[in-house]
């Protein structure tokens, strides 16, 4: 279908732009990588020959543009390089961490959607009434809370005051599935709750205008129940901005997962990134950013596909 082709073509340059920009920016970071590695390995001051050899090995003697294209070429063969610090292949490091982070993100999104949709529907349906005002006030309160405070508060409530969930740590899914999920609830809720206010508000706004539509009046005149009308007639046409925001908030979600993975000691990509930046492991950082860019591009593609699923007119109209 033309619509999908056009959307994919749109996102390819985005991917290149992100990886290129991050490559350039990492290159601008202060400090010398060769020094960092050599000083770490040996206690003596490295010789100029050692430095040159290592620079050559890591291609650091070549201009940054060339290095980017070397990296890009390797990437397409599935090789993201090896960590400068511990020589572990970047793909391997990512492969260990990605499932953990993906699970966290997906759970966070499910919780965010699961909370935001009913609240948005109630709020929009009862617009201007006490329940709507209450929900809106709550949403603004949540919006004002920083992520790490939200996490801390949740830990205090559900792990200390009423200890039903673990406050930190990660259990392997294969070993203990329930334990794994339990461990993810609080961190996922932390990220999810932060997303809820915006999602809920956009759904509310769109729903209010959808409910003015004649086809809602027609559905009422057919004797359909309020719940049926909300879920079967109004929700889909009201969810465009919602889906868009969901895609755009992915950026927040990734930032959020860095904070949350640190706070809850979860060995995900976010934590990997923090550690890599600490160690000035540029190639690993680049690998993480590539992964994030891919996720971003993928999710936005998904969002575009969702438009077409939600509204047949989008697919018919084309790009």
């Amino acid at each position: 279908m033309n619509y999908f082709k056009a959307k994919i073509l749109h996102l390819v340059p985005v991917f290149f732009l992100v990886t290129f920009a991050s490559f350039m920016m990492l290159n601008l970071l202060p400090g010398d990588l060769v020094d960092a590695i050599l000083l770490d390995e040996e206690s003596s001051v490295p010789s100029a020959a050692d430095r040159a050899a290592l620079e050559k090995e890591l291609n650091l003697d070549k201009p940054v543009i060339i290095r980017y294209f070397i990296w890009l070429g390797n990437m397409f063969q599935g090789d993201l390089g090896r960590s400068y610090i511990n020589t572990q292949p970047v793909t391997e490091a990512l492969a260990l961490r990605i499932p953990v982070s993906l699970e966290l993100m997906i759970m966070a999104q499910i919780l965010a959607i699961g909370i935001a949709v009913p609240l948005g529907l109630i709020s929009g349906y009862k617009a201007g009434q006490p329940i709507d005002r209450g929900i809106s006030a709550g949403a603004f309160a949540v919006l004002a809370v920083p992520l790490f405070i939200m996490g801390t508060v949740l830990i205090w409530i559900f792990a200390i005051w009423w200890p039903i969930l673990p406050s930190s740590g990660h259990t392997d899914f294969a070993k203990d599935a329930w334990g794994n999920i339990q461990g993810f609830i609080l961190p996922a809720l932390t990220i999810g709750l932060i997303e809820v206010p915006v999602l809920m508000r956009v759904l509310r706004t769109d729903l209010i205008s959808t409910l003015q539509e004649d086809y809602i009046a027609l559905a009422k005149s057919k004797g359909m129940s309020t719940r049926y009308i909300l879920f079967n007639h109004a929700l889909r046409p009201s969810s465009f901005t919602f889906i868009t925001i969901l895609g755009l908030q992915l950026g927040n979600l990734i930032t959020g997962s860095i904070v949350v993975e640190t706070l809850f000691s979860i060995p995900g990509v976010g934590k990997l990134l923090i550690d890599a930046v600490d160690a000035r492991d540029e190639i690993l950082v680049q690998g993480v950013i590539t992964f994030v860019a891919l996720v971003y591009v993928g999710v936005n593609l998904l969002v575009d596909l969702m438009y077409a699923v939600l509204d047949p007119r989008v697919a018919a109209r084309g790009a």
Partner: protein
Amino acid sequence: MPADIAESQPLLEVIDLYTHFDTPRGVAHAVDGISFTLDRGRTLGVVGESGSGKSVLSRTIIDILSHDGSVLYRGKVMFEGRDLRELSQKEMREVRGREIAMVFQDPMSSLNPVKRIGKQITEVLVKRMGMNKASANLRAAELIDSVGIPDPEQQLKRYPMHLSGGMRQRVAIAIALAGEPKLLIADEPTTALDVTIQAQILDLLRKQQRERNMAVILITHNLGIVSGYTDDVAVMYAGKIVERCETQELMNRPRMPYTEALMKSAPLLSDPPHTRLDAIPGLPPNLLNVPDGCRFHERCRYATDRCLTELPDLTADGSSEHLYACWNPLEVKAEALS
């Protein structure tokens, strides 16, 4: 109740109905004390300009306006002897779709753009008529066929965007007919359509009305449509019915000056070009602030002092069924017209 009483009783009896909107700028008197009856199988035309309250009236009868306190209701809507205004939300849902159905003005916006046509028909059959999916699909195809759309089975899978305006309005009629209602309210069903298509849709409505012995309330701003397609007529102005009688009687002998003015302001095909139109001066009153006395007095050429202060009731001369609300009804002129 015994069957013969049920038969002699009017299908719909609206008694002193008020629908007021509580807005930040004041209370809008959209429907302001309206009474009328409608028998089975009859077509009532409700004619008026924008802001006359005719659409609000239809939405009040089928009860699809808000109940959040922003709309104030008073009066009775008796349907087969039951007051619909007394019913619970759940009981009222049983009435909507099954007993009373509605067709809206703009078929471009009254069909859900993201739902297949089939689904929009079958949900009535499944939810209201208790059919299973398979028989609902069969019935939906029959309905599509009966409103004159070719390839019924194919149409069920399509979305509204695939159909022209006229075809969409046919689908909307099929949806309304799905619950086999006794009363169909059509709110300006052809205003958004081309003239040739308008005639087709009105013919379709009339055909269905006759076959099913449905009562129809046809809301329109067009006296020509009223004249061609209705048995009785109610003329609305600023939230009130100002004249009500059989359609031919109204066309021949309008008593209310507003009705006459409405007839004269529309150009006639039989008039030669450049015939000066008898325009009604001024504007319809703001429903937030209706004038004292007769609401038409500011624009009425026959208005007297009494019209400024006293609101005329909807009454008839003697035993006549021709009701009008006017202190100075047209008499001599009316004879000349017929």
